[in-house]
Every structure is written in structure tokens, then in C-alpha cells.
């Protein structure tokens, strides 16, 4: 038998996976929880919780500097998780995966290190008008500090980037393009491959904020040919407090370190030599060890699912949600991109998003309301915020029906 070592995943089935997420079994305000705030953070499967518990109950120890068994076990687990991450995003080498605190920290790392070395007075950094504040403010700070200019790619009424404007911005003064892969407010999937190819034609590196993409798209950093890719663990079913910066090895070797401290400096113990090359060069201080184990377990959990089936299901569920929401009177979507995933933002007539959100919460339905840390985007649409439902693979069509009914009930109450 040639295939008895290969376990094919069971075809994706939402009922099976829901049991893996304990929070999904809870009740809120007397109703079974409908969790549609996955864009803010995702729920955690038992596999993650148990891996973290195993770490703390079985081999909690500091990494990289112990001669003793537990420290070596902890180090092995910390590095094994890094290998899992490298595999998940198809990094060319495990050295290209840097642990950070999250997407925000990853962006700040690149702004502080690459920015310090390469961005000079008169240079340009390009972002877009649909960025999360975490991919705006670090670049504003850098540009202010260096006397550089921040240029912003506009988007059209559907929430799609104006590629013509982007092409016009590209010249030799541009030192970096930093862009969201998927909009956290409108769900737009940006044409990042094309953007990267255009920028690379002028030797301009590209950083992607993958916070909203990582859980929903197959991210292959080599296929994208992206220079830096940032994401957070907690948005892909892992714990909070840890994230990833992928960087091409040539860049991680080239740019200066971020923070100083232990672990980033080359030292030798009796046990073995400790690295100071990337990625450890960027990991000063005791890292989030349990969280790395949790993130590794989250990605392992996903890889053991029928990923293709899961993504097809997510796509289908999003289409169903868009179709059903469209039937609600006075509902208008904020963002109508052809290629979209994750966030579905909308307004209902002139009702304030917080009123709708609060009345949904009373029915056990969790959505996000507000500006979603994209204030410039709200200014463009002249709205105070949106109601945002962000779905993922453990959500169901039945939950979508509850959302639609919940919104209709809220509107009746507000219109009375």
C-alpha cells in the first residue's frame, strides 16, 4: 500500500468545526452567540488552548539559553511553531519569519528599521486611503522625522484602488509601498500581485498588511514576491500578543535591528551557540513563548482541515450574506468591490451604527460598529462609522438569517 501514511482531511463541514471552538457554544443576552466580529479577533479552537496549557503545565521555560531539558523543549516548540508559520505562508526559509507582538508591531518594525536606513529627505512612501491606522501612523511618523512625503492611493466608489493613480505615483523617489492586502472595513481584496510587480519594476519594495487576509486567503509570500508581510496571530485563531513579520532574507540581513536586549545579540552558552542572525536579531527580550506555541497550533489545526473546501465554504457564505443583507430596506454597503472577503460594512438609512449594533447585541449577535480604525476612510464616505459583520468558516447560513432578522427587528424599533 503506497498511501497508508497519508491522511486526507475530511471534506469541510461547518457542523464538525463548530464543536472545536468552545466560545461558539455560549449564550449572550439569553440567545446563542452569533459571532460576526471575526475581523476584530477570531475565536480559538481547543487545539490552541490545549497546546498553550500543555506548554504551561508541561515544559514552561525560557527559550534559547538553557542547558536544561525544559528550556530545550520550550526552544524546540518555539522554533517548531516558526517552521509551521514558514510552511503556512510558504516562506523560502524559516529565518524569514520574525515573531512580533502583532501586525502593528510588524509595521512599526519595518518603519523603524528599513525606514531608518533607506528613507531620506525628499523621498516618498506610498500607502492607500483604505489603510488601518496601524499602517498610516508609523509611516506618518517616519515621514515627519525624515522630511519625506506620504502619498495615498485613492479608491473609487466601490472601494477598489485607483490603479491609474498608483502608477502615476511611482518614480525613483518612492522608497516603499505599504498596503493592506484586504481592507478591514470594506473587505476589498487588493490586486497586490500587480502592485508588487509594478513597484518591483522600479526596484521599490512592498510591504503588505495581511491582518485581514491571513485567515481567509492562501497567502504564498514567494508567489506574491512580497518583501515584507505582516499579520497577527489572534486574527487567525491563535492567541493575542503575538504576530509575524515575514521579510525576505536579503532585507532582514540588510536592515538594522529594531530593539536592543537579550536574545538579539550573539552569545554562547555551554549548551550551544545562540544565533544573532535574523530572525533573532529582531526578537529582543523574552518572547511570547506560550503564544508562539498557540499560533503554531492554530496553523496546524487549519492545515489539518480541508483548506480548499473551507475557503470555498467561506466564499459561499459571504455571497449568501451579501445577497440576504441586500434585501433589507435602506441598507447600503460601504464597499462593493468585485474581489472581496471578510468584512461586510453597511449603513441602514441614517441610523447610527452604534444603535443598530447595540440592538443586535441584545439579540446575541456580535458585530462591530464605528470607524474600525480607518477614520480617513469614514471621512471619504462622510459617515460616522459603519456596522461591520465579518464572517469566517465557523459561521453558518442560519446565523446569517439571524443577523438579517436581527437587523430588521432593530430597524422596526428605531423607526417606531
Amino acid at each position, binding site marked *: 500500500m503506497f498511501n497508508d501514511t497519508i491522511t486526507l482531511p475530511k471534506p469541510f463541514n461547518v457542523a464538525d468545526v463548530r464543536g472545536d471552538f468552545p466560545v461558539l457554544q455560549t449564550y449572550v443576552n439569553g440567545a446563542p452567540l452569533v459571532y460576526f466580529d471575526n475581523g476584530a479577533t477570531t475565536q480559538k479552537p481547543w487545539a490552541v488552548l490545549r497546546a498553550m496549557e500543555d506548554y504551561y503545565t508541561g515544559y514552561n521555560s525560557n527559550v534559547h539559553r538553557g542547558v536544561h531539558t525544559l528550556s530545550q523543549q520550550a526552544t524546540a516548540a518555539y522554533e517548531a511553531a516558526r517552521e509551521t508559520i514558514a510552511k503556512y505562508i510558504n516562506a523560502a526559509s524559516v529565518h524569514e519569519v520574525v515573531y512580533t507582538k502583532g501586525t502593528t508591531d510588524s509595521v512599526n518594525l519595518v518603519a523603524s528599521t528599513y525606514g531608518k536606513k533607506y528613507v531620506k529627505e525628499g523621498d516618498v512612501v506610498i500607502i492607500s486611503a483604505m489603510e488601518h491606522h496601524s499602517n498610516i501612523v508609523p509611516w506618518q511618523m517616519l515621514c515627519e522625522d525624515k522630511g519625506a512625503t506620504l502619498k495615498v492611493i485613492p479608491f473609487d466608489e466601490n472601494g477598489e484602488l485607483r490603479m491609474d493613480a498608483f502608477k502615476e505615483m511611482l518614480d525613483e523617489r518612492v522608497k516603499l509601498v505599504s498596503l493592506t492586502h484586504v481592507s478591514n472595513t470594506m473587505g476589498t481584496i487588493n490586486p497586490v500581485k500587480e502592485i508588487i510587480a509594478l513597484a518591483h519594476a522600479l526596484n521599490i519594495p512592498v510591504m503588505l498588511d495581511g491582518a485581514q487576509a491571513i485567515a481567509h486567503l492562501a497567502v504564498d509570500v514567494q508567489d506574491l514576491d512580497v518583501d515584507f508581510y505582516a499579520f497577527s496571530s489572534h486574527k487567525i485563531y491563535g492567541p493575542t500578543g503575538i504576530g509575524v513579520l515575514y521579510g525576505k532574507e536579503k532585507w532582514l540581513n540588510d536592515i538594522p535591528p529594531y530593539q536592543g536586549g537579550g536574545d538579539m545579540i550573539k552569545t554562547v552558552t555551554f549548551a550551544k551557540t545562540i544565533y544573532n542572525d535574523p530572525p533573532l536579531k529582531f526578537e529582543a527580550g523574552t518572547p511570547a513563548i506560550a503564544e508562539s506555541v498557540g499560533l503554531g497550533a492554530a496553523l496546524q489545526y487549519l492545515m489539518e482541515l480541508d483548506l480548499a473546501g473551507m475557503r470555498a465554504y467561506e466564499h459561499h457564505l459571504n455571497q449568501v450574506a451579501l445577497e440576504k443583507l441586500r434585501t433589507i430596506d435602506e441598507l447600503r454597503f460601504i464597499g462593493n468591490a468585485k474581489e472581496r472577503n471578510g468584512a461586510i460594512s453597511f449603513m441602514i438609512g441614517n441610523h*447610527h*451604527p*452604534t*444603535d443598530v449594533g*447595540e440592538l443586535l447585541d441584545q439579540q446575541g449577535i456580535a458585530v462591530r460598529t464605528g470607524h474600525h480604525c480607518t477614520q480617513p476612510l469614514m471621512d471619504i464616505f462622510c459617515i*460616522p462609522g459603519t456596522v461591520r459583520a465579518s464572517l469566517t468558516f465557523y459561521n453558518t447560513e442560519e446565523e446569517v438569517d439571524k443577523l438579517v432578522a436581527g437587523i430588521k427587528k432593530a430597524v422596526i*424599533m*428605531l423607526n417606531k
Partner: protein
Amino acid sequence: MTINEQQDAIISDFEMFTDWMDKYEYIIQLGKDLPALDEQYKVDDNLIRGCQSKVWLHADYKDGKLFFSADSDALITKGLVSLVIQALDGQPAKDIATAELYFVEKIGLKSHLSPTRSNGLLAMIKQIKMYAVAYQLKSSQN
């Protein structure tokens, strides 16, 4: 009626409601019934910025007492603003400055006073108290 008598009246009004919909419909109605704030007062100086919804607050001072008018861009917040005004309107500045608004918790809307809620209600109450302290100081100087 004193501030606490007003609060107790609000609490007893809410005891009638047996489910969340009745309660919220009442708050929404209060929001709709709140007299519109004169446009001249709907200015940035009177704006209390919550993260999500905005509240405008204007205070008048007469014979040691404070009178409020207010507005919000969110209806539920506006209903709660109306309740705060119901409790505090026309009360002596010194009583407002030291008032403890326990009714919000008693009617099951404590979360609206959480700093993380950012709906402007908590900031509004703080602003009202600051007005009360300021008017007290002003009147003691006169």
C-alpha cells in the same frame, strides 16, 4: 424632587419592562422626544467626543440651579442623555457636583458608563459635573 428622588422615579419606570425590547423602545422614544438642541448650541465647543457617538451639551445657570439641553447623533445614547437630564435638570449646582448617578446601573445599562464604551455618556456626566463645580466657584466668588 431631589436628584435621588428623580433617579428612583426613573428606576421605578423601568421596573415595568419585562423584556429588553420594551426597555429599548422606551429609551429610543425618550431620545426622539428630547427637545432639539438649538442649532446655535450645536457647536464644537459644546461637543463631547465619544469614540463612536457624539453628544452636544449646553448648560444654563439660574438662581444657583443648572438647566441642561443636549443632543446626540445616536438615538439610544440620546435616550440615555435624556434620562441624565431628567435626573439632574434644575437641580442646585452643589447637588449636581456631588451626585452619584446610580440609576444607570439599576436600569441595567451599566455598560454604557464603561470607559471602553466610548459613547459619550460617561464624558457627558463628567462635563455636567465640571459645569456644576465651575458655577459653584463662580457664584462663591460673586
